[in-house]
């Protein structure tokens, strides 16, 4: 029982990332009708927001201290980050919490990137075939990826979680298991809660605001909404920006779990597309449910007991499920009728 619980927990953080990316993909697909292969790149850009913020916060002031000398006789260099020089203890905390802090930076940046992307490229592809949308966004993804690579190098850049969340949580004790059985890294739990929060916020936004209502109406019947005198294009641009923010935040917060490198986006994109398809193209709830489901199943498949029976299953489980789901339930778990079925 506790082993099962542990695997469920293990899958939740990854599932959260899948769900967030798949949610963005589905929103874009549902509103704009565009298949966005560059969405993984947005996830990656979000992660590199965290890298950049940490690098900026970590810029150090070098002062020479003549009272101390190095073993070679030169005056000792004292390196201290400027934020600490300026803000003292608060600066130290800021440095420690660089990943959560970068969320504040990532939101406007990702919104901007999303809007620029939509206005600059995607809007010309609304009427073009899906194959061309896939291809042009695939090209864009490569371009973004290579630009990041040329700026940050090809190696993963580790991002530590804040000290407070670096340890493990003995999760089992809270549920009445023996101590030490269900131990779980704190940051992963944070990530899961964070992803649930973001998902809830997106749903609330779409459900309870006028803006969200218009967007939902636009998803159902774009033309009629336009005829009612609403500039649906502008709303959809903002929706694209929001989807970019969701993907970006998923990436920013994921950095302590997986050190970001330039191709992390591609790895997640393929999986997230599978998630979208399993959940059902165009179904927001389906995307979220499938994201968590596949994350958890993947974590079960990587248990040693399972691998002993079916070697290699952890590598292919998600694809295997996608194949089975598509063959048994062609519309995905919660797919609506008439979406992508021409």
């Amino acid at each position: 029982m506790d082993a099962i619980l542990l695997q469920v927990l293990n899958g939740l953080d990854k599932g959260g990332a899948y769900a967030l990316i798949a949610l963005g993909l589905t929103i874009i697909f549902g509103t704009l009708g565009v298949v966005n292969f560059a969405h993984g790149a947005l996830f990656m850009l979000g992660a590199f927001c965290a890298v950049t913020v940490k690098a900026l916060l970590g810029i150090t002031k070098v002062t020479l201290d003549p009272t101390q000398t190095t073993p070679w006789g030169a005056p000792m260099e004292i390196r201290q980050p400027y934020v600490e020089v300026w803000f003292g203890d608060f600066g130290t905390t800021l440095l420690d919490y660089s990943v959560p802090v970068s969320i504040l930076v990532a939101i406007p940046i990702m919104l901007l990137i999303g809007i620029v992307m939509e206005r600059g490229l995607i809007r010309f592809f609304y009427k073009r075939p899906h194959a061309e949308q896939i291809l042009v966004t695939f090209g864009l993804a490569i371009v973004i990826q290579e630009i990041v690579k040329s700026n940050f190098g090809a190696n993963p850049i580790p991002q530590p979680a804040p000290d407070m969340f670096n340890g493990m949580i003995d999760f089992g004790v809270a549920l009445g298991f023996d101590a030490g059985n269900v131990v779980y890294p704190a940051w992963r739990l944070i990530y899961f809660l964070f992803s649930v929060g973001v998902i809830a916020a997106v749903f609330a936004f779409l459900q309870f605001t006028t803006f969200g209502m218009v967007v939902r109406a636009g998803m159902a019947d774009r033309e009629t909404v336009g005829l009612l005198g609403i500039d649906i294009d502008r709303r959809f641009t903002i929706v694209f920006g929001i989807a970019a923010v969701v993907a970006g935040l998923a990436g920013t917060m994921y950095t302590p779990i997986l050190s970001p490198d330039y191709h992390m986006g591609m790895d997640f994109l393929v999986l997230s597309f599978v998630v979208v398809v399993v959940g059902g193209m165009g179904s927001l709830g389906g995307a979220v449910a499938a994201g968590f489901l596949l994350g958890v199943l993947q974590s079960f498949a990587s248990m040693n007991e399972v691998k002993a029976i079916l070697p290699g299953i952890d590598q292919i489980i998600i694809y295997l499920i996608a194949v089975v789901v598509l063959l048994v339930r062609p519309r995905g778990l919660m797919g609506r009728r008439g979406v992508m079925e021409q």
Partner: protein
Amino acid sequence: MFANTISKKDLALLAVFTAAVLAGPIILKPIGAGYPDLLQKFAIYGIFALGFNILFGLTGYLSFGHAAFLGVGSYTAVWTFKLLSMNPIPAIILATIAGGLFSALIGFISLRRSGIYFSILTLAFAQMSYNLAYSVLTPITNGETGLQLTQSDPRALDVAFGRDYGAVLPVSDLFGMEMQGYPGFYFCAVMLIVCFFISMRIYRSPFGMMLRAVKSNQNRLNFTGVHTRPYALTAFIISGMYAGLAGGLLAVTDPLAGAERMQWTASGEVVLMTILGGAGTLLGPVIGAGAIKYFENIFSAFNDGILMKIFSFLPEVLQHLAVSISSLFVGEGWHLTLGALFMVIVIFLPGGLMEGVTRLSNLFRKQPPDDRAGGTPHPAPAE
């Protein structure tokens, strides 16, 4: 057997193509591509793209998993070398068959869906093969190291015919002719010409017509009582066999096979080749493949030193600026050029280079543009 039905125009095209391929080393010399290693790549990826085009260009099914068949072909060929003979003929025959069988399996499942679902399914299968090749199938694929020849391979047929390679690592040879350098290129070139001929016959056949019908309106076909899936599946298998052959030839010219050939970026590359040249046209994919491999070769060889020389006519400040900007796009950053090229082509020239050629020639002829130009890049979406 087709000789009585082949039109004069096609015969001329085939003749010109054959001459151009065989004279490749001379024709491509002025642009610095007249050496065998690169020429082999042109021919091999030309075959790969030709095959992909039979599926994508004719039926409109966008597969994102074709690299898997290439990889399977390579592994089969290397295993043939190891177990049977260093002669390339059994290797490429078995590679083609393996590519065909594997694609029959994947196509049978994937073709149940169409549109983006099909793309995702093929992608899923390719990623699955790639992941398995890296992990569980290591006894067959030799994992990250890649499958290589060793001196102690059994090579049953070679032994039976009394061939002994001694204490060196053998290279593939066709009855004593080593498949490296120009002989290797001509072997691939002959294969390319054969493949081109077959694909031309498919284009002109009723079967090819049927595939185009699948692309333009599958529903209408279904309503008229035609079952489209067998046609699409046949096209899928044929293109899988082309990919297997290309993979086999890669192993012939350089006997090792690695899993990275199956990665989905490799699948993306063949899509780009086909689009760049012109999907649905006969010659386009070969030209696209050549262009990509040529630019890959040229651009990735550039470094700052060469760039400095190129921009040496500029004043020093501008020179450094120009070098630092353009160095993003060359050498290690060649993929950036590739991605940008991808976007530019899809945005401005969705019919590929062949459409560009047709547009230009229409411009000069001052005729109203022919609506079949560029192999109908914009089919009306089926409703």
